[in-house]
């Protein structure tokens, strides 16, 4: 039982790291998605700050979940984030169908549609699997393993950031200067 749970936990951590790293490469475009979900009139600097905060939050939770599996509370936090994904994709599907969700920055061109809701539900399901109990022996990592995992997670975040920046560089819709 331990192996599928740990695999689910690892997969979700990688997903959060990639999503956070990719979003950080272009906070302005993710801020435009954030604006859709804030009913109040909010200034762009504040929206950008929220976008950066969300991206950093995803990145931090992913890094912590991967390198500190002994902290069970992180599994609940990841599950809560996955439930938020479901809510966001459902609201996006209901009110902003066809608009780009920018869930992975420029890495993906996914839009708010039925498939995005389904994907979010699957992610939440995997997060629910990761909530299952794992033996203490499987969760205890020594410092070397933690450092190794942190390095791998850091590399993943950097690659996601760089890849999203490279893909996004040539795909800006219209850049006009005055």
């Amino acid at each position, binding site marked *: 039982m*331990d*192996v599928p749970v*740990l*695999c689910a936990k*690892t*997969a979700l*951590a*990688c997903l959060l790291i*990639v999503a956070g790293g990719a979003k950080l490469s272009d906070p302005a475009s993710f801020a435009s998605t954030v604006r859709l979900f804030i009913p109040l009139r909010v200034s762009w600097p504040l929206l950008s700050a929220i976008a950066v905060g969300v991206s950093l939050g995803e990145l931090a939770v992913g890094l912590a979940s*991967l390198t500190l*599996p002994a902290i069970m509370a992180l599994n609940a936090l990841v599950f809560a984030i996955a439930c938020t994904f479901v809510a966001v994709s459902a609201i996006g599907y209901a009110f902003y169908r066809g608009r780009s969700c920018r869930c992975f920055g420029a*890495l993906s061109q996914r839009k708010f549609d039925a498939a995005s809701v389904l994907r979010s539900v699957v992610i939440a399901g995997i997060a629910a699997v990761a909530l299952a109990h794992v*033996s203490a*022996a*499987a*969760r*205890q*990592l020594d410092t070397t*393993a933690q450092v*190794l*995992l942190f390095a*791998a*997670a850091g*590399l*993943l975040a950097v*690659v*996601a950031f*760089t*890849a999203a920046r*490279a*893909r996004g*560089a*040539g*795909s*800006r*819709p*219209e*850049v*006009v*200067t*005055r």
Partner: protein
Amino acid sequence: MVLASSFVAVALILCMATVLALFGVTHVSMSGAEAIERDGLAPGMHAPVWSLVDSADRVVRSPPRTPLQLIMFTDHSLKAFPSVVDGLREVMAQERLEIVVLTRRRNELAEPVLRTIGLDGISVLTGSPSLYAAYNVRVTPFAIFVDSAGRVRASSLVNEAWQVTKLLQLADLPLEPENLAPRSRFWRRPAGAGV
């Protein structure tokens, strides 16, 4: 302990597999035909508006006063692609066309070189990296035709003379209605651009 080692192994493998997948996705998107089409600006789009002073203290503007302006992004590439120089020589006689050469760094030798190869009189301007980015130009020599209304008429990577003349022909074609994009609300002045 075995399970913990398995967790580390699975996590590392998954991380590395994701890294490789990201490399693959980026490589495909940066090297295919789609990537080439993404460079430059599509016909009908609004080109960046700028004004820069060349080495002879002439003010060069875009959009131009002439019906058409050819902005040639070059850096060192004109020396490497002499046939592009031939293409420029073929089109520079046209009075309706203003040609400007844009380089990333100020190069005192650029104008003497242009004079030597028979392209004297062409303004050589130093464009900031953000101006290059605004035109979505990554590789040179790259040609962009802009009309007096500030619309992009044609743009492409060029390395042969005929491509320059063919682009000029394409620039003369009327714009299709679906390409006449409304002006963006988010205007930005590139750092280093002039007035």
